[in-house]
């Protein structure tokens, strides 16, 4: 091969790889996440999470678990979905990263899991209980998969606030999706199966990510 042709080929390869490898993107599925903060005055007692999945993942989970094909999950089917396609998220903190100040935690449990179908797409709903955990004033929630298997998107209305029954809402609540460049998530992508810690500080072998956050705070 002539040298100029070789150089052209080299340039083309570099450009193609640079143009694509720089994107460095690799999700295999996606979900749209919406949050609802349950408030008692200024204290958050829990977060209702709703995930709407992409059509391809939806087709598989619906196809495998809606056994009578009636377009809904009955109690037994719901439990089947929970066990087979949700419970494992306990190993990933349910993709929920709560931050108050510079303290970050993942919930150790969630409750009220419910799977449903909307226009052929899979929907999960569950609740993150926060009673007595001091989430009031100003705090943030990131929904993030540290394995990058699942891309998470926030819709145009990513979150809302709902006062619990019989209580008055504290006025001035603001919820917004905020870029996060200050509070990284440190996680161990290659740790042992039982290792799902959220690390406070970077250590050797840990990866760092800055997931977008949904921030709840109050106007002064």
């Amino acid at each position, binding site marked *: *091969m002539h*040298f100029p042709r*070789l*150089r052209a*080929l*080299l340039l*083309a*390869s*570099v450009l*193609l*790889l640079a143009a*694509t*490898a*720089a*994107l*460095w*993107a*690799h*999700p*295999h*599925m*996606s979900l749209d996440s919406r949050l609802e903060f349950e408030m008692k005055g200024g204290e958050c007692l829990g977060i209702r999470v709703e995930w709407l999945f*992409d*059509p*391809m*993942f939806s*087709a*598989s*989970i*619906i*196809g*495998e678990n809606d056994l009578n094909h009636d377009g809904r999950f009955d109690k037994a089917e719901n439990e089947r979905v929970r*066990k*087979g*396609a*949700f*419970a*494992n*998220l*306990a*190993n990933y903190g349910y*993709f929920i990263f709560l931050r108050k100040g510079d303290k970050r935690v993942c919930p150790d449990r969630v409750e009220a899991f419910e799977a449903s179908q909307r226009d052929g797409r899979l929907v999960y709903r569950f609740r993150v209980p926060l009673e007595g955990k001091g989430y009031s004033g100003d705090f943030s929630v990131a929904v993030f*998969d*540290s*394995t*990058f*298997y*699942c*891309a998470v*998107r926030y819709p145009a209305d990513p979150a809302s606030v709902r006062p619990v029954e019989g209580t008055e809402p504290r006025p001035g609540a603001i919820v917004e999706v905020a870029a996060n460049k200050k509070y990284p998530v440190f996680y161990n*992508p*290659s*740790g*042992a*199966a*039982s*290792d*799902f810690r959220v690390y406070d500080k970077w250590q050797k072998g840990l*990866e760092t*990510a800055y997931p977008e956050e949904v921030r709840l705070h109050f106007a002064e």
Partner: protein
Amino acid sequence: MITIRRARHAAVVLALLLALAASPASANPFLTSGGEEGRAKPAPRPPASSGPMVGAQIELRERAAEAIRSFGAEPSAKALAALLGAAFVYGLLHAAGPGHRKTVVFSLFLGRRAAPWEPLAAGFLAAGVHAGVGLVLVGALSLLRGAIASLGDAERVGTVLDGATFGILGLAAAALAAGKLRGLLSGKPRDGRALAGRGLYGVVAVTSLVPCPGATMILLFALYAGRIGLGVAGVAAMSLGMGVVISAAGYLAYTGREGLFRRLKTKERALWIATEYLELFSYLLVLGFAVYALWPFLAQIG
């Protein structure tokens, strides 16, 4: 001298061990291992980041799904073209991310002389096997199950294959590097015939025997829509897109090597050193890559 045949035997043994050890692994964080509520993390190393084109990939997948649906409702050339176009571009972007054996193809062409068409052939072979094994896997699991294959089963087998092929790759690279090093130390280096011709394509094919989850999901979606032909066409188009990117990795190594050798062609000694050490370096690069990818697997076994 460790022969390729011995390395292959050892690799098969390791692959089986890894397959056994990795059985509880699950790549998809949602899916429970073995039907039980397990505590599994993905065994092969997951990627370290995502990126700005994630939105585009998601949109392309959704377009492909929509095209399959609309073709199902009313078959048209437009819907077919939309599916093939979306799957092709998705393949391009998807292969640009971590995985898909770009490093393997790059390393192999760094260490070996090749004809100008070979990186193209190797790239498309890797992409074809990568996507094709998904078709075979979904087909086989569906036949075994007597119903459409479960995504969890397909991904579990995929995870095991991922680990096993990295094991084979690491062992083959270690054997080849050891042979090369021994030759260099004894002053009678072998000339890199170990991976000449079909050997290289064998390595590329064997290490690509990992189903692409993206392709598996397209196929499963088409199966649930009752349009298996569209699923196969979509996976083929995706595979073409991936082939372009994987070939580019091969050409990067090929052009770099050819350029270097052209500059050294009048300096016989320097050319000899470059040939020998570049080959050794390429084997070590593959070995390092295999160990890096397998590390979470090994940590889990330990």
